[in-house]
């Protein structure tokens, strides 16, 4: 079956512009995660959704970052007034885990964001 998909695969934008990154999780997966991988850094957690709710937003680096999920499926990560330090690969993952620990997460191919 289809895995996690993300769009666009690459995004180049100018400093100060807003961008939207999209994630389509595996069908039926209630949990959805966003991570970021900056140059020379490991993967950093950004936000976690269970259904349409986001019980853990602790990784969002600033109020310029927001995310939403609709219909328990597609999620959009929005970065407002982009800065050069926002340049990174943004990874989305989904899981069938609902509670009781951290299950296997299935990752998308990522969106490479470059802020000029």
């Amino acid at each position, binding site marked *: 079956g289809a895995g996690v998909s993300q769009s666009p695969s690459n995004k180049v934008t100018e400093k100060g512009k807003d961008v939207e990154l999209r994630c389509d999780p595996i069908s039926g997966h209630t949990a959805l995660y966003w991570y970021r991988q900056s140059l020379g850094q*490991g993967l950093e957690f950004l936000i976690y959704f269970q259904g349409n709710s986001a019980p853990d937003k602790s*990784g969002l680096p600033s109020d310029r970052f927001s995310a939403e999920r609709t219909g328990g499926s597609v999620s959009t990560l929005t970065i407002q007034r982009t800065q050069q330090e926002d340049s990174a690969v943004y990874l989305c993952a989904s899981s069938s885990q609902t509670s009781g620990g951290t299950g*296997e997460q299935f990752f998308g191919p*990522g969106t490479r964001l470059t802020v000029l």
Partner: protein
Amino acid sequence: AQRVTQPEKLLSVFKGAPVELKCNYSYSGSPELFWYVQYSRQRLQLLLRHISRESIKGFTADLNKGETSFHLKKPFAQEEDSAMYYCALGGIQGAQKLVFGQGTRLTINP
């Protein structure tokens, strides 16, 4: 704060040699430990997790709570093992997120 440390950014071994990728974690609760792997031009995928205690592609990893380690081992490396390996910590205070190490790029030389 919870942290995962992979001390080696790069590791190079010859085919057929044993390989060990080190991972140490910092967490006072009951940890869940994972190894994820990313092969060239593929997406990140789960290799193994400590609760399953299984061997995947010849790799094993044992959780040592005393040493707070979860090292990944394989007795005889193969060229197709060349990849980026990430150790990850989950189960943090009931949260679902993963805390990743910086990753180790493993290269198997022929």
